[in-house]
């Protein structure tokens, strides 16, 4: 009797999640009333959420501080850009001859392919860094991120593979069941903007990423990652093959980055090495640290906040700039405010805004 009533009054976990996802799905319909620019901000926020969830596997679960994560994002973006834009067919007659209709890779192939190729790059990065930890690992991964960017910047000669700093343009918009996500959808009188469709695609990917990441964390693989994070020697003594599991963490985390890259390239239509700077890597690390390392809700929160905050600050920075007679540059002011926010959060909540709850602590000794 008691059990039945308590079950009936408590909202089940999945229902809470369902409400949250539906709420997130409705959000762009509201935002687009205020202009597509707002939906675009939400798109970027979701993209960063996807990246943050991926990096969280490497840094949050396995404890491997990776400062070059954006490289995997770049790999995914360039993969799609090369296989769904006129660049390769224009540069290489042989490819043009082989594909008279041009290269137009569909998203169904691009997403898994990017995940696999990025995972491969994850292993390539992971293999030489297996013996490194902490600061040393951070420096090597930082170097890796820069190497990828430098390659993208300079592989325009002797053969023009990446088009160098000019970047790749005219990338196909993402197409799902024959519908281009760049076009708006009209249902009767109601209009759904293209950016909203991209938002929904990203939302599906984010939900999938959360489920995959959560299930991994609660499996024996996730526990092994966390054991490596907590104490590598003890993890080895428990029979964990730390080499394989670290490589697996790099590969799994990187694959999320590759997937994000594809969506980014298809959404922007143009990419250049500029989008994959060290600053991006640092921002993604900042997101997961700010939100709560290793705790998915915190990671999502941190990514949304840090991705949306600059845009919101745009409205604060404007008046402040006028106040100082234009001497303060709006872009610099935004960076300043973000830095300030981070310092305040880290001082007040060193484990992040929404860290893993300290369960059990008071339950037993009440």
């Amino acid at each position: 009797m008691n059990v039945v009533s308590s079950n009936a009054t408590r909202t089940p976990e999945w229902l809470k999640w369902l409400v949250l996802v539906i709420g997130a799905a409705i959000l762009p319909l509201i935002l687009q009333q205020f202009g597509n620019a707002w939906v675009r901000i939400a798109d970027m926020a979701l993209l960063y959420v996807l990246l943050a969830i991926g990096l969280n596997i490497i840094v949050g679960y396995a404890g491997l501080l990776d400062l070059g994560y954006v490289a995997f994002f770049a790999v995914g973006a360039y993969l799609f850009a090369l296989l769904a834009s006129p660049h390769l067919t224009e540069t290489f007659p042989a490819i043009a001859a082989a594909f008279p209709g041009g290269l137009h890779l569909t998203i169904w192939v691009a997403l898994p392919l990017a995940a696999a190729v990025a995972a491969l790059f994850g292993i390539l990065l992971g293999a030489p860094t297996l013996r490194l930890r902490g600061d040393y690992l951070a420096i090597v991964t930082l170097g890796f991120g820069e190497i990828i960017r430098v390659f993208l910047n300079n592989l325009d000669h002797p053969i023009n593979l990446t088009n160098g700093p000019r970047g790749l343009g005219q990338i196909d918009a993402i197409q799902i069941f024959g519908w281009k996500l760049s076009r708006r959808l009209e249902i009767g009188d109601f209009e759904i903007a293209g950016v909203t469709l991209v938002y929904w695609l990203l939302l599906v990917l984010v939900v999938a990423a959360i489920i995959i990441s959560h299930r991994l964390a609660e499996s024996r693989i996730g526990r092994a990652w966390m054991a490596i994070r907590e104490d590598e020697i003890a993890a080895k003594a428990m029979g964990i093959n730390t080499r394989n599991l670290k490589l697996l963490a790099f590969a799994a985390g990187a694959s999320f980055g590759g997937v994000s890259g594809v969506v980014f390239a298809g959404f922007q239509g143009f990419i250049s090495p500029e989008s994959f700077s060290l600053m991006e890597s640092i921002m993604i690390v900042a997101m997961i640290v700010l939100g709560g390392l290793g705790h998915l809700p915190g990671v999502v929160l941190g990514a949304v906040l840090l991705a949306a905050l600059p845009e919101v600050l745009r409205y604060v920075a404007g008046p402040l700039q006028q106040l100082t007679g234009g001497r303060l540059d709006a872009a610099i002011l935004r960076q300043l405010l973000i830095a300030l926010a981070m310092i305040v959060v880290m001082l007040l909540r060193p484990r992040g805004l929404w860290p893993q709850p300290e369960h059990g602590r008071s339950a037993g000794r009440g």
Partner: protein
Amino acid sequence: MAEPVMLKVEGASKRFGGLQALDSVGLSVAKGQIYGLIGPNGAGKTTFFNVTTGLYVPDAGRFELQGRAYEPRAVHEVARAGIARTFQNIRLFGEMTALENVMVGRHLRTHTGLMGAVLRLPQAKREEREIAERARALLDYVGIGRFADYRARTLSYGDQRRLEIARALATDPVLLALDEPAAGMNATEKQQLRILIERIRQDGRTILLIEHDVKLVMGLCDRVTVLDYGRELAVGAPAEIQSDARVIEAYLGTAAAH
């Protein structure tokens, strides 16, 4: 008559720069024994442990577990072969709960892969349930079941030592190697530890024990090796060891000096 040999080490040597930490040390632990390894600070006890379990690569030595030679090259492979250990300076997974710590110990006896975990296949779910059940049972076994959901670092010192033992037992070891399990414990805790170690032996496991507390070693162990300056000083039953002049000298200094 005599039980078969569980662990046999011959001529284990290890040098750190100019220091010969281990100089051709050997021992033979019979199945079901509690074997003690004692000696003053810096005698090489922990080095012997680390070399036997693959944490350090030995300069020389022959290692045999259950009659099969093994190369202690990789720690995780030694664990797979059946030696589980605890650490002198407790090495738990601090941010994980006590239960999760023990569940990690099941890692090498379970098989769920990436796909099984992501898709939550029936087999993976069953295995996960078994891991949790086994871990809970082990927490109860060492007497800290009520702290299952506490983070390991929040447990008391004695309970952390017990948790380390539970985690080691989770790997289904044939040989349990305990590195100073009683360090920092008070008299009551030591007594409880002693009961636990005896119970583990009764349940069919062989135990290799490094201990500082001579009284505990003498009361528990069937056989003892004394190390001093990386060398074997004496081997024998506790009673023989206690009356051995060389051992007394190593521990207390020569009679002439006093």
